């Protein structure tokens, strides 16, 4: 059983994802704000973070949190991050999977919303299995 933190301002989506992951046996914590998420994970580091990109106060708060995690502490640096976005990866105004960069965007993988919950479950299982085997930013 792993401790998974979902950081998403959309409570409906976060609850649905949490239900699915709890059914898979994980302990799931939902945080609706990035600042609260950072405080919480500083006290207790999760095994995996599922992170949305856009939040009401900033359209890049998810990116910022991923970077803050990397600079916060060694234990948070190692936590794999699965980034969710409602913006298509190829959309010219957004970003692409190849933008995953150790410095700029230290996350492990992307999933595009709407997310298939079985895909999410599989991706989480795969990332938890591989956690620690590769550094953030590697694909």
């Amino acid at each position, binding site marked *: 059983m792993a401790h998974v933190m979902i950081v998403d301002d959309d409570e409906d989506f976060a609850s*649905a994802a949490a239900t699915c992951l709890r059914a898979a046996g994980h302990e799931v914590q939902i945080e609706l704000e990035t600042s609260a998420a950072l405080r919480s994970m500083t006290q207790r580091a999760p095994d995996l973070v599922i992170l949305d990109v856009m939040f009401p106060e900033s359209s890049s708060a998810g990116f910022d949190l991923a970077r803050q995690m990397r600079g916060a502490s060694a234990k948070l640096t190692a936590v794999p991050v699965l980034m969710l976005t409602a*913006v298509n990866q*190829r*959309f010219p*105004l957004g970003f692409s999977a190849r933008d995953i960069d150790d410095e700029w965007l230290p996350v492990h993988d992307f999933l595009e*919303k709407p997310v298939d919950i079985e895909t999410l479950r599989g991706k989480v299982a795969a990332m938890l299995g591989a956690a620690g085997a590769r550094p953030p930013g590697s694909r």
Partner: protein
Amino acid sequence: MAATRPDPMARYVLPLAGSGSAPSPPADEGARVHLPESLLVRNVTWFCRLRWLVVSLLAIFGGLDFAPGVLSRVGLRPPGAWPFVAAAALALSNLGFLAHARLMATAATPHRARANLWAQIVADLTVLTLVVHFIGSLETYVAFAYLFHIVLACIFFSRSWSLVVTAVACGLYLACVSAEETGLISRAGIYADAALRGQIDGLPGVRLLNVSWAILTWVVVWYLASHLSALVQERDTHLAETNRRLRAAQRERAQYMLRTTHELKAPFSAIHANVQLLIKGYCGELPPPAQDVLQRVAKRCRRLAAEIQEMLQLANLQSKIQGPLSWGDLDLAEALASCVEQARPVASGRGIEIETDIQPARTTAVGDHMRMLFGNLLSNALTYSMPGGRVRVACAPRPGAGPRVVIEDHGIGIQPEKLPRIFDAYYRTDEAVRHNRESTGLGLAIVRDVVEAHGIQLRVESAPSVGTVFTLEFPPTTAVPGQTRETRETDDGPRDDCGR
């Protein structure tokens, strides 16, 4: 008890709409209009390059003194050392101006660039006055060389400052002629025949008229040039302001589009996830009719999310003010193969076989757009194929021309009279709607825009119940029209998405 207010209270006044970007008033004639510093610095160095040419001409003229008989043959007398002195003075000042310009390259300001230009003009006018004296202030046309600086001053300075330059030129010329007239300096001249100057010397009225004509000409040229320059500068200022606003609007639009995409898709994401919880039994078993309803809700969610995505893609493609595109050398085979692999699960789900004959074929294109193009055409072919049908995908280079890509299906086909409309946004034939109600009608509109942007020739051949063939013929690599390669990149392989 009176309520106490927290101290200090934060205050914010909502700015009036547009107050941050009020339009600049039109520049009045004579008003000081500044050129951008980058342009000023470029012109500082351009002047310096021109000056080396003048230095060379003066040195060559001085050097002719050492070639016996050359000057006398054309009626000129030996100049002596003055051409070398003038060339040396210009060369030394030029080195100083260039050194200053190099310093400005790192920290250019309009003030520094303008100071450099002023110093150049003053130095030039001083040396030019010496040259005018030695060549002949009244009997030659050399004095009209002052006009170069007057016109340039009109272009680079305000009207009032260009008038100052004109006045300085007039003053120096008058000083030169006056010094000669009063005998303060001895008369000079390049003509070997002293009678040429002698004739004028005997006619004070002619001398006065010559000087007056010269000065009047400069003043008239200043008036015309500075007036026209002020109009051009005013236009430049307006264009620069319009450009700044367009760029600001582009940034704002990009942010708005990003936010809109998120705001429109996010609710569907939540609905989709919760519906899936019900369908997959996370909340207990549901009776089959409820399952059926939920499947339809989920399907509609997926379609709406895809439609929003395609609408935004199309809007972005059609925007003429979007940012620079990433043009690069691209192997179409890789992009096409990637899209085919992406499409295979859908194809196998419908029992459709995808046949491929894909050969490496390089071209210059925007990688993202190519994947969008192939993804939409493949999706179209699969959508309108019959279950158990066959789709053929081919790509090959053409000798002396760009690559050719063919995507062929054996599906429902299109009636001939409807072919011209299939690339219209939201247009769907009745047959297409009957065959598949889920399509957005935007896929081929996206294809049209990508094809137009790349100068690709697209041919469609179709017959009802027989199938449709889309043939893409790319232009030769050097002849992709209508695009500026503002950023070039080497393609680093296909991405994991293909436009759907």
